[in-house]
């Protein structure tokens, strides 16, 4: 018999081989039956559904990227300009005026190496938070695993991120900081950022469908979060006794990792890293469960 696989609309999809006698089944391929009914399982996750709809994921990402770059005349330049200006601003305020220490690294490089993953994270959170609501018409008219929506919005800001890395590499060259093998670990850290963003946005996108003020609160939360992350200051500035609390922020781990990989300084604080990963996984799994529960109501509300 086939396995029981749960379908994304909260209903259970049992893939069975329809009962045919062996003589017949050599002629026709076995048909698969789909059963739709009310199920409220807690942990149903339709992996096969996500795989089946993978092309839709690509198309959603492609659509978003294409539309974004079609509409802006400045387009690519803006992607580079934004982090550049922010970096200059922060350097002026925090680097020179406030004289925030930066672990011995030249401040602009110090802050930019954190700004880039942060900008990616902030954009991913913002976009996927509203992804379900923005695509409301689609949700009401077509069936597809709804998880693809926040998932797609996690992927699209990567394009901006990769482009802005050019700026960072340029700056590193200018500062005379060599690139080592550690740079190859960067994708791992970005993956951490992606998963954090995904976990969080599974909550926010689902909540936002029912309660629209969640969407409005996100920008504010992101702002506050930025200062809770070691962007303008290093983790070493955080008093020892509070570092464990600080490490609960997964982005702290991501940024530490980035700095370690790019700037060749001291290894990241292992406590912070470990905490980040653990928190991230918890949020992700809880997010998936929550999203799947709420998914059933989306079409009814939107």
């Amino acid at each position: 018999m086939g396995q029981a696989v749960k379908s994304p609309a909260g209903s259970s999809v049992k893939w069975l081989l329809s009962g045919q006698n062996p003589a017949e089944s050599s002629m026709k391929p076995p048909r698969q039956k789909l059963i739709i009914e009310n199920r409220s399982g807690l942990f149903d996750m339709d992996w096969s559904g996500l795989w089946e709809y993978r092309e839709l994921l690509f198309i959603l990402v492609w659509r978003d990227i294409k539309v974004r770059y079609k509409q802006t005349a400045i387009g690519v330049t803006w992607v580079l300009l934004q982090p550049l200006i922010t970096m200059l601003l922060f350097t002026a305020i925090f680097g020179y005026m406030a004289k925030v220490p930066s672990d011995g690294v030249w401040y602009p490089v110090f802050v930019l190496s954190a700004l880039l993953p942060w900008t990616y994270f902030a954009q991913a959170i913002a976009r996927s938070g509203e992804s379900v609501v923005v695509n409301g018409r689609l949700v009401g008219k077509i069936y597809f695993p709804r998880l693809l929506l926040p998932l797609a919005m996690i992927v699209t800001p990567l394009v901006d991120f990769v482009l802005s890395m050019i700026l960072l590499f340029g700056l590193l060259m200018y500062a005379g900081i060599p690139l080592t093998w550690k740079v190859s670990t960067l994708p791992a850290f970005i993956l951490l950022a992606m998963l954090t963003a995904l976990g969080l946005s599974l909550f926010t996108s689902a909540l936002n469908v029912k309660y629209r003020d969640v969407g409005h609160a996100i920008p504010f939360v992101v702002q506050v979060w930025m200062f809770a992350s070691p962007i303008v200051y290093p983790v070493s500035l955080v008093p020892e006794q509070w570092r464990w609390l600080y490490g609960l922020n997964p982005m702290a781990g991501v940024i530490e990792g980035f700095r370690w990989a790019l700037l060749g300084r001291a290894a990241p604080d292992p406590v912070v890293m470990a905490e980040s990963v653990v928190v991230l996984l918890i949020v992700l799994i809880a997010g998936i469960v929550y999203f799947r529960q709420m998914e059933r109501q989306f079409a009814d509300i939107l």
Partner: protein
Amino acid sequence: MSEIVVRVEGLSKQYRIGARQKDPGTLRDHIVANLKSLLRRNGHGRLRESAGSENSPEHAGTSDKFWALKDVSFEVRQGETLGVIGRNGAGKSTLLKMLSRITQPTRGRIEIDGRVSALLEVGTGFHGELTGRENIYLNGTILGMKRAEVTRKFDEIVAFAEVEQFIDTPVKHYSSGMYLRLAFAVAAHLEPEILIVDEVLAVGDAAFQKKCLGKMEGVAKEGRTIFFVSHNMPAVTRLCGRVICLDGGKLCRDGASHEVVKAYFHSELGTMSSREWPDSLRAPSGEVARLRAVRVCDENGQSTEKIDIRRKVGIEMEYEVLKPGYKLMPAVCLYNEEGVRLFDSLEHDPAWRGRVRTPGRYRSTAWIPGNFLAEGTMFVNVGIDTVEPEIAQFYERQAVAFMVIDSCEGDSARGDFAGLLPGVVRPLLHWSTAFTPESIQTEPMMSGPQTRC
């Protein structure tokens, strides 16, 4: 006998109506409301609703729940084209949404054997900034086709839509006709085993609708199973061998298309010639006008189902005007048994035409002259638009119906002819004949029945 591909058993869907379900409140309101109820419960030892809040807690009464679909069961075999008809709000769209996995049933189950593609709207996912070419890929993938499939059918799709010249211009520059054609073209080239179509044909001009119908017939001929929901009765009888009728969420009829459609018209709901909406929440309504009742009446003002062909018949609309300062345009549309639209009539009462209406209850009657309509059953749609700006307030299809009867007493348009008289109208015309007595060479008499043209 072909196998069963869709089996629906005891399918039911419950919704909560009103602000609760549709309009999301804010998280803050929700939390506050729950806190309030918690405090009240502690304070008074019993539960009380928090008045006015959109998110008042669960115990705020059960009147805000209703069954969009209740206990629907039927089976569909491979290759069948099943029509789904019923009034607005009967549950047709809910059924389709559940079949296409968009929404989850409250009770019951559906078993489906085969790939399903649902066409609940044309142009879903189309993005104005992208070109026709890009939108074909976008829409095709959204509808479930693989990229390779879209590429393979690309030229056919463009040819069907007749937009070869404009395929690389952004869709926001397309005319509405082109947009529709392209959207339908993509959808028309889906190759699912089971296709679900919801009133898609209601949009577009006559040429477009004809094309859609033709394509659907093609799909049916290929042996695919089709679910077709429409108000377009001629399309339903043309495409579907079998029709199910939904009413108030329940399956009320299931059988051969002509029979079910006919029965739907000569309805089971008691008198078809009078309909009322006593509950103002359920009445068809826009912001300015709300329909309360529609009646068919004879020349004496009596509500009646049967009208003598020689006598005038009145379609009476009772409606309320809710806001001041608007001019209204009430309209009545008549269809015959075959779904042919006989005419639309807009209000011409000189006392009210072009005048701003003060809020209140109105009763407008449109009088159709006697000796004009043909025999048979007539179905009436009613609607009201505001004039400036032109906004539809409501449009109630098949609100009432009546039968036109000719008792063959000799003074109607058929005169002494007792046979089948075709024609969508049957006016009693004035004939004038002049006669000149002269000797004429007589022709041999024709034998056999006369043929009339």
